[in-house]
């Protein structure tokens, strides 16, 4: 005899960004398909995952996109909240939950937040920057909206591999910094390649009448790096860790001001 409660199908996908596999569980086949499409190239076939999130889908509702995200910690749990989602995550058990409607933007935001929390403890960070690999070296191009991240990405030559046109993923591995591709897209709406390379330089973008590269003093580099880092947590210890990570990065990686015209010749100076 069948039980009174129908068995609920459970679906699972592992999304590996920056070499950190995160399992997402859902009971909705359409949502799973959306995740498979959205994170194509970053879906891991390996069964293991470092963290697991259970997604509970809610009916679509109006959510104010201008409401700031809040990320707080209480009793060993992280709480993440924006108008369009609520999420919790317990690092000790490596398990969390997300309540959101069936849209890609909410889970994308949660993944970004979780990765910033993980990276902050490891000396890495997410950065508002395009990044690309050329000749085995990764180059980051940081700047606010309009600084030229999309333009420099669009101008990249065929021998350059685009890691992202919007959000770079930087890990500290040993004493080196390594940039990874991300599915976090900007205006190009093109997923980065799921590959990685040691970071050779950070360029602070400025558009101007000529192509030129100028050195940037360490303190100025730190200010600009911090201004472009993604960081959400209202947590004193993690703020300090992010600060130390930024200081260590500018100690180790050359930072330049890249002034450029919207012309492919700028890439003759890079790589």
């Amino acid at each position: 005899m069948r039980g009174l409660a129908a068995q609920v199908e459970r679906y699972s996908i592992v999304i590996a960004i920056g070499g950190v596999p995160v399992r997402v569980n859902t009971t909705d086949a359409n949502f799973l398909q959306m995740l498979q499409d959205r994170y194509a190239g970053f879906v891991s076939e390996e069964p293991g995952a470092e963290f697991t999130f259970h997604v509970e889908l809610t009916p679509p509702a109006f959510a104010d996109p201008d409401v700031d995200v809040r990320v707080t910690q209480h009793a060993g749990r992280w709480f993440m909240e924006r108008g369009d989602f609520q999420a919790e995550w317990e690092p000790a058990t490596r398990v969390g939950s997300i309540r959101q409607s069936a849209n890609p933007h909410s889970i994308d935001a949660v993944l970004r937040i979780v990765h910033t929390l993980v990276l902050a403890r490891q000396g890495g960070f997410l950065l508002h920057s395009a990044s690309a690999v050329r000749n085995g070296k990764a180059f980051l191009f940081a700047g606010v909206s309009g600084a030229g991240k999309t333009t420099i990405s669009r101008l990249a030559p065929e021998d350059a591999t685009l890691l992202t046109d919007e959000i770079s993923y930087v890990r500290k591995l040993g004493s080196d910094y390594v940039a990874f591709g991300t599915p976090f897209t900007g205006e190009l709406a093109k997923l980065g390649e799921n590959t990685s390379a040691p970071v050779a330089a950070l360029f602070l973008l400025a558009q101007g009448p000529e192509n030129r590269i100028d050195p940037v003093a360490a303190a100025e580099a730190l200010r600009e790096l911090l201004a472009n880092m993604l960081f959400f947590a209202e947590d004193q210890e993690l703020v300090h860790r992010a600060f130390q990570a930024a200081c260590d990065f500018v100690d180790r990686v050359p930072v330049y001001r890249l002034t450029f015209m919207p012309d492919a010749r700028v890439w003759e100076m890079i790589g």
Partner: protein
Amino acid sequence: MSKKLYVARNPRIAARMLGEEMLVMSGQSSTLFTLNPTATILWQAADGATPLDEIVERRICSEFEVNPEEALRDAEALAEDLAKHGILLISEKPISETPIARQDTPAHEQQPWEQRR
């Protein structure tokens, strides 16, 4: 005669000297401050045990050609400003590692010695 003041670095602040600039980050407000040379001297000398007038005499008057009384007044005002932003702790007694000294709420106006994130 005015009372002696003691200053200590707030343990909630992270700091790093990069090039010739001292940058400090408040974990509470996520605000980055760049200290000017005088504020940097105060920060480096603020051990909680050395009175402010001694810091001024030994570190500031020797570095800059200034009148000691005027330098002390300026240093007291600067220390108050730094305390308002949670960077330094000020007390009329020596400050131990677990201080209960005054730590004012950060003000909102931008100061000439700092830069916000």
